[in-house]
């Protein structure tokens, strides 16, 4: 089932410059595929996506980045909300981040887990799909 949840506190402007920092970047001259490795951090406005490995996927005309595929344990932070998953695909043009494989979202003291989550940074909302479990911490 799907549960929609607020994620990130504001509307993210997807036309902001995206800054990617890492230890290494390897670019294959034939295929044009670029792979960042070594604590890669993607920052755009309030959004911060960190992962050990990020692959850049281009649009057909090779002039725009269509998607950043973060694998090996990605952590997405937006505002004071954070989400972790084995993999996160960030489509820059649409502002959608798709997180897959044991997603874990912490919002304040509450923790929610699910198989699969899509975060829409432009509206600050997220849908969690699959087995969604919520662990509410009693407020002392």
């Amino acid at each position, binding site marked *: 089932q799907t549960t929609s949840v607020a994620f990130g506190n504001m509307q993210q402007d997807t036309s902001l*410059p995206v*800054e990617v920092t890492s230890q290494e970047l390897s*670019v294959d*001259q*034939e295929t044009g595929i670029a792979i960042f490795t070594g604590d890669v951090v993607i920052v755009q406005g309030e959004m911060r996506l960190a992962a050990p490995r990020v692959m850049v996927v281009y649009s057909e005309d090779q002039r725009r*980045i269509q998607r950043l595929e973060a694998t090996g344990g990605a952590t997405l932070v937006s505002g004071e909300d954070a989400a972790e998953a084995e993999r996160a695909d960030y489509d820059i043009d649409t502002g959608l981040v798709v997180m897959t494989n044991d997603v874990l979202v912490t919002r304040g003291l509450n923790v929610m887990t699910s198989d699969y989550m899509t975060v829409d940074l432009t509206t600050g909302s997220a849908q969690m799909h699959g087995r969604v479990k919520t662990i509410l911490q009693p407020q002392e």
Partner: protein
Amino acid sequence: MSRRDRYYPRLIAWLRILLPLLALGLLSTLFLLSRNIDPSRTIPFVTDEMENRVIDQQVTGPFFSGATAEGDLISFIATTARPDPEQADRLLARDLTAHIDFLSGSAMDFSAKQGVVNDRRQEAELIGDAVITTSAGYRMTTEKLTTALDRIEAETAGPVTGTGPPGRIDAGKMQIDSDPETGNAHLLFTNGVKLIYDPAN
């Protein structure tokens, strides 16, 4: 015989002597009296350039090329090149450019103001505003780039900055090598990489 007849044979006799002498005189003006043209003075050339050209054996427009084991073609061109006075197996080149044509069709160019080509180590150093451009759309500049002459292997001495399809890239170092399995050339940026991609443009 009439008086005229007697003169005639004598006239011929004198003519037979005078005419050859006259011919000889004319002929001699061609060789003996003519202005002698000094061949070395007629061809103008600058003497001092001859001296330093001979001393440092400078070559203009040197060009050499080769192929790697995988079949990629590498060619080096410079405006001038001359042996390094201190070290015999080194060539000092000006405006050295290297062009690599990969078997797969893509290409890569290195260029710099100065170049040092080391035969023994089969490598060349490109120094001074070294620029690396690739057919994939990357254009990186660095201070110094060392590249092998006979295989695809190059690395920058220090930081490199420039642009490529993903955007503006800055890195602490860049290496270029070919992937053993695919044979494709790889740009490997290391020592910290920063990319800025601006979706707006």
